[in-house]
């Protein structure tokens, strides 16, 4: 690993440091079958809009080990940008240094941007940007704990869409997102398709797919497929994800309604 650049704006540690090596990890890791949920189920979701007081809208999502906080600032005037008829979405994703098994040095790397682009794609067609000329909506996302890229993108998209709704920004519909994967050899004998991979499962999978939809309009906003997957499996994955997205939509809608009913009594 290249030594991280010395940054005098932070308290610095030694020039080089390495994550500890464990005796136990020398044996090849075996991935156990799921015991806490069915193959076709996503992890339990906790979603709370409006925790960040100064943001125009915000949401916190927790799906067992994935913990993501999202805030919306704006819409505000686009600065240093050419005139544009439509508003812009600016998605910035940041990993907390302690969010992964290996410490993330506080520099933006490729992974942050990958997630940012994926979430941007998932949300873009849901926001009524034609109503916001010359404006920018900032979507800031912090991954407090990560359990795989797929889960982060899916949960991040849901949190961002919830936060947009919480901010009162006009949307065509709420975006929900779900991931699926196929054939992790170590895991299964049958060619099953599974929903919502954890980090270990995603690493063992041959191919993964993330589907983002607006269930209220029955439209797909983004499909992101990686790795090897038969075309027939892709379609089957999409169908499975679509069903889960509809369930997720009910959860998101419920959390927004609950959040708005509490407020007047305060």
């Amino acid at each position, binding site marked *: 690993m290249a030594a991280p650049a010395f940054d005098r704006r932070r*308290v610095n540690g030694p020039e080089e440091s390495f994550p*500890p090596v464990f005796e136990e990890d020398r044996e090849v890791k075996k991935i156990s079958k799921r015991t806490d949920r069915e193959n076709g189920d996503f992890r339990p979701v906790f979603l709370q809009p409006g925790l960040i007081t*100064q943001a125009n809208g915000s949401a916190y999502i927790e799906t067992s080990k994935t913990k993501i906080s999202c805030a919306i600032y704006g819409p505000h005037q686009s600065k240093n940008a050419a005139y544009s008829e439509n508003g812009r979405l600016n998605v910035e994703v940041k990993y907390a240094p302690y969010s992964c098994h290996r410490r993330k040095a506080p520099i933006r790397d490729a992974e942050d941007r990958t997630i940012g682009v994926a979430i941007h794609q998932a949300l873009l067609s849901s926001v009524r940007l034609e109503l916001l000329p010359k404006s920018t909506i900032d979507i800031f996302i*912090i991954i407090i704990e990560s359990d795989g890229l797929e889960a982060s993108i899916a949960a991040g998209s849901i949190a961002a869409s919830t936060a947009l709704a919480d901010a009162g920004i006009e949307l065509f519909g709420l975006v929900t997102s779900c991931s699926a994967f196929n054939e992790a050899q170590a895991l299964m004998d049958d060619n099953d398709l599974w929903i919502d991979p954890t980090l270990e499962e995603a690493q063992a999978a041959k191919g993964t797919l993330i589907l983002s939809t607006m269930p209220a309009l029955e439209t797909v906003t983004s499909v992101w497929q990686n790795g090897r997957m038969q075309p027939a499996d892709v379609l089957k994955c999409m169908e499975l994800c679509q069903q889960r997205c509809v369930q997720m939509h009910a959860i998101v809608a419920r959390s927004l309604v609950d959040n708005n009913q509490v407020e007047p009594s305060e």
Partner: protein
Amino acid sequence: MASASTSNSGSNEQTPEAIALKAAVFQRLHPRVYLERFVAEGIRPDGRQISAWRDVSVNVGSISTADGSALVRIGDTTVVCGVKAELAEPELDAPTRGFLVPNLDLPAICSPKFKPGPPTEEAQVFSDRLHEALTSTGTISLEDLCIQPGKAAWVLFVDATCINYDGNVFDATLLAMIAALKNVTLPKATFDEDTGRTVCTRKESAPLNLKCLPISFTFGIFDGKHIFPDPTFFEEPLLDTAVSVVLKEDGTISSVSQVGADAVEQDALSRCIVEAKARHQLLLSKTIYP
């Protein structure tokens, strides 16, 4: 348009929403006068008594990827802290000492005041003061982090992230860092002379030996005479002076810092210290660290 409709309806028939809007506009345009009117009534804008503190809650160990973690809330201010332990070679001039690397991140998510990018000046100052508070009190003996003199030692990266900025981030972060450090368990590490590598085992692990648990108490002085404990985001820019008192767990003072000195009454500093000690007693009696 809004003002036309309110003037038509007359001052007696204003809806609560219209009054709230007027107050918000007044707060935005004349923050100082807004605050003065509250102080004249003996109350703070968030409904506290002048000398009251906000509720503190500490939650530990919720982040499984960190070796120790804590979430601290002071009112609406929320700080998450995670400790990651890594291995490194000790410095040549200190072969028996490990490393403690505390940093605070104030990301764009926590307040419109911050933009994405490198650490702001505020974050740099906070990180430095936190480093000072942790090292000067001797919270951790760096010798305890040594695995093999001159060969291997632990590096504790103590990274705090502010999720919601509503003032008094320093107190919240110090509390979060201490709570996270208290939550750390380090695996047993052994240095293999033959291979020159350090190997750890999950079978045995031990908590850190914390020698001191410093707690910080921050006050703002408004208008030269009013002492506001635990200032909020709205109050902070209006304060003439900010005083931070860091106390060790036996109540002795570790450090006092005062920023901005104009128009401070002679005894303000000692009053802050007395109030900090009283609050310290109260926090200790409630066992804030779970």
